[in-house]
């Protein structure tokens, strides 16, 4: 399962975009890994591993969302499909963005970097955990997070645009 290890990040991203909850995503990823392991002989070596894995993952996600029975908010299946298709179609672009992310992270201010670190790098922390750690209000954390996210997003856009020109 060297392939799985190599592409786990992409599959995580795929699951996360549809489930948008970190701990659920991690749990699902474990299940999916097991399913992938069992089904691996149906994968053709010359095929696109990520596409195949995401196909398997998609059914696990559907199953998961249905069993959670969150009918009030569950993204309708047609939307899920749309997101899935969009994602699979533009997988390479997202991969480029991930590369640019490293560049942009380096350019983040120290405080913002701390925030990213506290929120994203320490497991499934919530904004209130971070808030307690660094002594700022939860609302401030959310605001800052959003600002950092948008800043990173913008930086990635700029970076990709520049790469296209050169």
């Amino acid at each position, binding site marked *: 399962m060297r392939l799985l290890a190599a592409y*786990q990040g992409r599959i995580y991203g795929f699951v996360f975009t549809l489930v948008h909850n970190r701990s659920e995503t991690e749990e699902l990823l474990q299940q999916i890994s097991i399913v992938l392991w069992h089904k691996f002989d149906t994968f053709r070596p010359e095929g696109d591993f990520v596409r195949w894995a995401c196909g398997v993952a998609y059914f696990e996600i559907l199953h998961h969302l249905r069993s959670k029975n969150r009918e*009030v*908010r569950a993204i309708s299946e047609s939307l899920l499909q749309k997101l899935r298709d969009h994602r699979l179609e533009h997988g390479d672009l997202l991969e480029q963005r991930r590369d640019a992310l490293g560049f942009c992270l380096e350019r983040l201010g120290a405080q913002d970097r701390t925030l990213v670190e506290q929120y994203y790098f320490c497991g499934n922390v919530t904004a209130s955990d971070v808030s*307690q750690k660094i002594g700022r209000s*939860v609302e401030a954390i959310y605001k800052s997070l959003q600002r950092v996210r948008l800043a990173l997003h913008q930086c990635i856009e700029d970076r990709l645009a520049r790469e296209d020109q050169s």
Partner: protein
Amino acid sequence: VNASHPFFLELTTLIASRLEGRESPESAARLDELLIEHHEARELYLELADLDASLAWEVRPRYADLFELTQQTSTSAAPLVDPAISSSLHVPVLSIASRTMTVLFKPVTWSILAVGLAFFIYIAVISSGIRRDKFHNESNGIDSFVATISNSTGVKWSDKTAVRIANLSVKVGEPLKIDSGTIELELEGGAKLVVEGPAECTIDAENRATLHSGKLVAKVPKQAVGFTLDTPMATIVDLGTEFDVKVAASQQTDVRVLKGRVDLLSPTAGKNQLLTTLEAGETARLALSSDSGEPVLEKNRIAINNNLNVKTEKPSDLTLRLNSLVLWLDAGSIDLDDPAQVRKSGNKAYVMEWRDRSQRLSKPLNLTQVSNDRQPLLVRRAIKGQSAVQFSRDRLTCLTCADGTLMRAESPRTVFVIGRAQGQPDTLIGGSLLAFQRVASSDQRLFDANHISLFANSDSSLKSMVHPFLGVFRAEGHDLLPQIQVNGSPWIALDAPILRANIVSLVGGEAGEGYTSNPSGYEYAYRLSVNGRDTNPYTLQGVTFLPETANKDDFQLSGAGRFAFGQPNWGDGAADADLESMLSSFAFVESEKATLTLKHLTAGVRYQVDLLICSTPNYRTAVFTFNGLQPNSFTQLPGTAYCLREIVTASSSGEIVVGLSGKGNPVLASAFVVSPAPKEVAPQAVVPDARRAETVVGACGLDTVDRSQSWDGDIAELLVYDEVLSSEAIQSISNYLAHKYELVAMPGTGSRGLTPPAGLKAKQNSDP
């Protein structure tokens, strides 16, 4: 997706709340709709979601070295990871921390400082100029956003390229020039600036700004104390305040303190020389002398008038003097120099007599204590610059008035208390204003037959109190306390008969998931670990009520049923005990809907319905109907703790249904229907016999039995009215207290936030 896309702002907000797991059903539906319809929306969503995913999953290992590197190369400004390491690393920073920081440290005792070292140093680093210079110059990338433009009216920008309007973020040093209109800036540090054009300013750090010219008002909450504003002629260091500043073209600088205090420093005269400290109501003008060309300081006291959208009118204490005022204790009125009132010992002042200011009864209810050992301490500047009387649990301090006739028999009361629990360090909950009440065995009320007793100690008792009244109790600028607030002021009114339903549901929750009654997740953060890490789907719902307050035939609970399994474990620690005990009487059921129905309404009677919801993000719907119709102002519940109140006048007989529906993540809710006694039962909060009533504040008599229950902390002011006040009266008294003690009103509570329990006849009061 272009930032100028019409949906950009809305979309990014919606996406953020989804990724943060705190979207409401409406915003979820709206986002789904946008995502389905717009290709670009999907694109942006995928990009942002993938950004989150990469940060959470991939970046950690991939860029770990990058982050370690930063920490090594820039020790003085490195993010803190391990407090133990970082505190040793950062100690030198203390010595070079700016004056701003010295101010910040001042009120902190050393023991607290030792514990909180890492935390404070962290603040010191980011707030002092060190970080700004070092990082601002080094990086040309995307760092250094330090403020957000939260509001703007009629703004004309001098320089079109100046601000990235798209996400309204302001960078360090970015020139903000406006020709006209106002902008409202929220600094990362928490300070809020309202800049009125024409003006030019820059934000220099998360807690520092420069006003080159023009006018601004600074509102500085507790956490941003030390906020520094530079002007060409002065540096203003805030000490917890609200002030406005005007810089004229001649550089003449006018500073006016509306609340709190500021230090005025001169940047030109040597190194930050302290020119003066301004108190509320004082102004200072710095102008260049026409003779010497040197700056000259002129200081004045002024009547603050309402200008620049700052609310400063001070309500008169006449508003408090209603006919029904029977007791008014104001620590500020205690005369330090009167040996009949105060006993001085060393530099301490002990209260021998606390005089009643009400002047309403033939005999004032002056409270006294003759025993030296049990006299409470008078503390000046205890709460927002106001004096308070400090009661000590250990010393069993109390003040009494043995033969006062406080209340008419059979009369309900409305009570206002401003106080603060002991043991909350100033740095943490400096302004936490708590009103407490006795928690009697049968129900919760401030009074028993003959006493006023101020009870309760810590947050845990606060919890049990907040529920029945949906009272207030929030510290300024602080979210450690439940954010349940009624126009920023404590309000306790005595209970009318209350039908209460506590609805608890744990539906499909995950092990380890927390219950949060406030967004900080601190106060009520109960961990739910059922069978350890067992994540089997389970369903628990429970409903309970206080049956003793009403006739059982008149209401009905649905959703009651069987226990799904044993008593849930609400986490560890003693603080959990009372929620646990509260839950112990619950019957858990499998149900999607839990409601309390109040039947047999009496036509023409006002009913107040409160629904308090404490929850992790959930997707439930608050149910409230009156004869099957939903009142318009009873809003649906958003993802986190929320408090809903509706008052209806029954136009006809019928029924009220209140509760929750829909499955979702865990939710803890309490629903109350405060109603008149359905069968004309007299209100419960009555004094059966007031002939020999005794008034006690502190821990006297019975209170000595259980010290843990007795009041330990400051009381600044206590007002007792011998009736249920009208909502207008409560409002104006609240306004007075809120102004005096700088309580922060939560936006949106509006005038309907404060309402006496319905059903007790509210009388309109007029000033004498």
